[in-house]
Every structure is written in C-alpha cells, then in structure tokens.
C-alpha cells in the first residue's frame, strides 16, 4: 500500500453529501485524481524545478446507479485499472472525492474503511494468480467471512461457502471444497473468484478484465454468470475491459478513457454504435470483424499512446487525432453533454 504518497487535496473536497446525489446512487466520483510521483535522484531534485508525476487518473467524475453495469474501456495505460483500485481505496487518491452510499470515503483510515469493505469487492484479471495456490477452495471463498467476522460458527461458514459456490455453478460444492486451485480449470477458477467477491453480498464490485485471460469459448459463460450475480444481489459493478465489443454486450453504460481522462461516456449502444469522440471512433474502427468479406476500409490511426508523465497539452488525444486543430493544443476540452445523456470531451462539439 502506498499510503505515503497520498496527499489529499484539502481545498476542493467536502465530506458533506453532494446535493445532487440521488437515492439510488451507489457511488459518485468527483474530480478524482491519482498522480504517482516519479522517483528522482538526489541531483535531479536539486536542479530540476518541477516535480514529475505519472498522471494515471486525472480529474475523473461519474456516478454509478444501483444494479448498474458500468464499463471502463480504453487502451493499456489509459488509467482504467488505477481508477478501479482507487474507487476501492486499494490505492489512495491524490485528490478528489469518492462518495460511497453518500459518504466520502477518501479521508477514512483503513480501520474506518474495514466495515465498508463488506460492501465493496474486487475480481482480478488472472485467476491463476489471484487465488492462493496453497489454500483450498473452501478457505479461499471463506476468507472474507473470517476477515469480517460475520459468521457465528464454523457450520455457518461452510453453509455459506456451499451456497455461494452453488450460485456460481461450482456444483456439487462438496466435491470442490477441499480441492486446490491447480485442480480447477481457468473458467472454474474465475468462478471461485466471483464466489469470493459475492459471499459478503456486496453492493459494489470492481471486475478488472475478468475474462481476458480465459479461452474464448468459456468467456461468455463467466460473463453471463457475473451479469446474473449482479442482478441477483442487486449490486453495481464496474467492469474494466479493453474490449469494446464485449463492453457493448454486457454494460449499461460505457466510459472510454485515454491517458487518465474520460473522453466519452454514455449508454453502451450510443458509445459503440454512434461514437462522437474521434478516439472512440478510432478504437471501434480498429476492432477486427469476424467477416472475411468486410475487408477494412477505414484508416487506422497512427502512433501509440503517449507517456502519461508528460501528456500532450490541451486535448490529450490531439497528437493522434485526424481532426486536430489549433484550439486542441491550447485548451483542454471539458466533458460536456453533446446529446442527451451522451457526454464527450472534444472541441468538435463545443
């Protein structure tokens, strides 16, 4: 945990309930920032004036409704995973506020956070690394119960583990309780990770690329399982994915990130079928289509994602944008509502 680096900005946060916070909002994020200071040598500290930061997440705001599936999409290095971790306070934010059920959690200590952790869980990308190879399935799934001390007896622990394993279709659960992760296939392991995340009946789950390590033929069943679990537990989920096609089919809303900023945010249909931002358009054009007769006609944009240490001035996408004009290099476009419920940060729409 890098609690030493965090310096919470005192000026622009207030712990009061924001006035526009609706009753069905699970999470509201305002101007969230996570900057990682670059480690510099002694001489460098003496002679260079400016501190260098990796701007992993920079002024991100959005809200999450109850029961909503919200996808964070973007290339690697766009800050989507960092954002997911900051939301759970697994990484401390540099500034900004996170209101969880109306309560600002950015300033809580880890001790104060512990009871809230019952409500928030995470599913990691790689089920081969996120399950302890020396623990049996029963202990892996029961760990949240033990940490939070919610089960009264050993019998209750076992009962709840069996119940949640049945929910994720690891059946019959008795057969799996005393197995080790290496005895399970990739799909089964990720189901165990889902079971562990849902055993405390959380209201908010972050899933970080939960199916990208799985084979194509079993991806769909794990994704469908997660959707069903979210519905059943009326939880909200942040689904981090680089795959826009997948995001389209499972998410209610999608936010497209680039270099730590949200570039476009709307319902999944609007973002994927009618993208407004040139970056989203480029991302969608780059997705290969499983149809040999539709040879790609559109041009692929050139270049790769720039370094988040020194992002381009103005609009961060301008160095790769086919529509970049003068204003893009001087003025940073704000995220505005270009159409109803369709937000975009681009000067083409301002």
């Amino acid at each position: 945990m890098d609690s030493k680096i965090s310096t919470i900005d005192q000026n622009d946060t207030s712990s009061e309930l924001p006035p526009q916070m609706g009753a069905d909002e699970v999470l509201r994020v305002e101007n969230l920032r996570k900057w990682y200071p670059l480690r510099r040598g002694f001489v460098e500290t003496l002679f260079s004036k400016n501190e260098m930061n990796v701007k992993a997440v920079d002024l991100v705001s959005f809200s999450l409704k109850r029961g909503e599936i919200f996808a964070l999409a973007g290339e690697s290095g766009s800050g989507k995973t960092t954002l997911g971790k900051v939301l759970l306070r697994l990484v401390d934010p540099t500034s900004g506020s996170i209101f969880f059920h109306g309560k600002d959690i950015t300033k809580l200590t880890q001790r104060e956070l512990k009871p809230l952790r019952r409500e928030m869980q995470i599913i990691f990308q790689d089920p081969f690394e996120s399950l302890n190879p020396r623990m049996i399935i029963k202990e892996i799934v029961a760990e949240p119960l033990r940490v939070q001390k919610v089960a009264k007896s050993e019998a209750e622990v076992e009962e709840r583990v069996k119940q949640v394993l049945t929910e994720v279709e690891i059946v019959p659960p008795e057969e799996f309780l005393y197995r080790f992760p290496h005895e399970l296939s990739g799909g089964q392991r990720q189901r165990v990770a889902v079971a562990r995340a849902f055993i405390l009946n959380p209201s908010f789950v972050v899933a970080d690329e939960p199916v990208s390590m799985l084979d194509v033929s079993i991806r769909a069943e794990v994704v469908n399982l997660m959707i069903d679990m979210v519905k059943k537990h009326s939880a909200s989920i942040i689904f981090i994915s680089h795959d826009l096609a997948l995001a389209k089919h499972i998410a209610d809303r999608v936010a497209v990130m680039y270099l730590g900023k949200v570039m476009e945010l709307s319902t999944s249909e609007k973002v994927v079928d009618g993208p407004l931002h040139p970056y989203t358009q480029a991302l969608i054009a780059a997705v290969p289509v499983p149809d040999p007769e539709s040879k790609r006609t559109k041009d692929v944009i050139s270049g790769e994602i720039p370094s988040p240490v020194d992002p381009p001035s103005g609009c961060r996408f301008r160095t790769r944008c086919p529509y970049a004009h003068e204003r893009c290099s001087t003025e940073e476009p704000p995220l505005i509502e270009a159409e109803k419920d369709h937000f975009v940060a681009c000067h083409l729409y301002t």
Partner: protein
Amino acid sequence: MAVLSVEGLTTNYKTLRGWVRAAEDISFEVEQGEAMGLAGESGCGKSTVALSLLKILPPGGKIRKGKILLSGQDLVPLSEKEMRKIRWKGISIVFQGAMNALNPVFKVGDQIAEAIKTHEPKVADSEVRERVAKLLETVGIEPSRANNYPHEFSGGMRQRALIAMALAADPSVVVADEPGTALDVIVQAQILRLLRDLKDRLGLSMILISHDLSIIAETCEKVAIMYAGRIVEYGDAVTIFKDPKHPYTQGLIKAFPSIKGEKVRLTSIPGSPPDLLNPPAGCRFNPRCPFVMDVCKRVEPILEEHGDKGHTVSCHLYH
C-alpha cells in the same frame, strides 16, 4: 505446386505421465502469395504446429509422423545443421512475444543483421547495414533507429522489428504466431495492416496463427480450425465464416461478441477443452458437442470434403 504442404504431421510431447498428443494428423497446404489462418483456443496445438514447421520444439517435443514439404523438400528427416539453412530463408517466424522475443543487450539493427549474415556470410558490413535500413523502412520504422536497443522501442515497434527480422533472408514462407496479441487494439490493427500490405506487395506466403477468429477473417484466404490437437474444419475463409459446418466452429464464431449488430446475451460452448494426455475416445469434441450421437463416442471422424470444393470437415453429422 504449393509452397508448403504439410501431410499428416503428428507432434507429441514426452512427459513422465506419457505422450501429450499436442498435434495429430495435421495436413494443409499454403500456395504462393496466400495467407492461411490456423485458429483455435489455447492448448489446441496451433503453436506446436508452428514450432514443428521450423523444428524448434522445446525439449520433449518430437515429430512422430508426417511430412513437411517446403517446395517439395521434406524437412522432417533433416539434421539440425541442415535445418539451420532452412530457418529464416526457407521458413521464418514472427514470434508473439513483442516484449521478450528480442535480446535486450543487442541493438535492434544488429539482431536483424544476424539473420542476413547467417545465410550470406560473405556480404560486406556496409551492404548489410543498408539492407537492415531498407527492411526497417519496409515495416515502417525510421532506419536511424537501428542503433537503438529493444527497451527504447514501444511494443508496436518491437513487433515491427520482429517482422523485419522474419523478412531479412527473403523467406518462402512466414509463420506469424499471434502477431500483435499482447498489443492494444489500435496498434494491433496497425500490425495486421502491415502484414496485409507486405503480403500484397511482396507476394508473401503466410501462416497466421491466432486465437482470434476476427483477425484471421480479416487477413487470410484459407482457414484451418483446430481443436484438441486436430484440424476439425479446413477450407476457404469466406465459406467457413459464412457457413461453418463443425459444431465447434459454429460455437466459436458465436462466442465472439461482435461490435456490430444488436446487444445480445453471449453464448458459450459448455465445458472446457480436454486433457491431451488422455483425450476422449471417438470425436474429441464429443463431451461438449450439442449434437452428440452414439457414434461420436466410439469412432473418430476423419476430415472429409463436404459441400463446396476444398471445404473439409471432420464430423459424423455429415458423413
């Protein structure tokens, strides 16, 4: 005549528990200037086929049967010394690991030059440098970057450098093993575009290995779908994607979320691929197949032509 023709190739790995039957009875042909896609999930044996073609299998791996005919010459009985003359010049490979396929302590240009010098030791250094510069230009890298080390390259540029290396000795066939898989979608699209351009411009014959059917659909004229070490369907790309016959191919195509069209609940193939130490009897797909019949559990189907010419499928539903 086909540039490369593989006949009944069987490659197994020796383990303490027995032979892992990674690739069995693989046959296909690649014509001049044609791209063939080898598709399948992880563990289906597609990389084993690629490594067998160059005979660079890891310890324990052995070609137990079959022929690999490169312009009529069988590579299987060749010695290691003779194979060295074939690698890079006869068949070259573009490795997947854009991150670690290059040696970090040598300059990128020198690593490409090595492939040229191995085959033409008498060429003057100045000419080698010129050729390296030209190769880098072909793949879209500034020639002056030849003096950089791999860590100074981005992921996309490393993958481009590996492509340049594969082209260095002017090979008859290029094998591309999951090109661009570890890269972002935009960079991956750039790499695939480059491969398509090179194929058209230089008339390359190519084998593209990928788990992603859409990448193969966009690049290849011919497709072989592999499952549990065997080719289950083989033929022209348009036919296979429009009218897949094998239940596995059908399931795999449906499992891909498409960026176009309506929002739907995704479908999957229940179960998981079998253990290749001890594959199921009969058809290897039978435990997961929705159309399974009695005969599937007893008799192993053979790859036979069905419907259009050249479209072969190994399934009891059609024979």
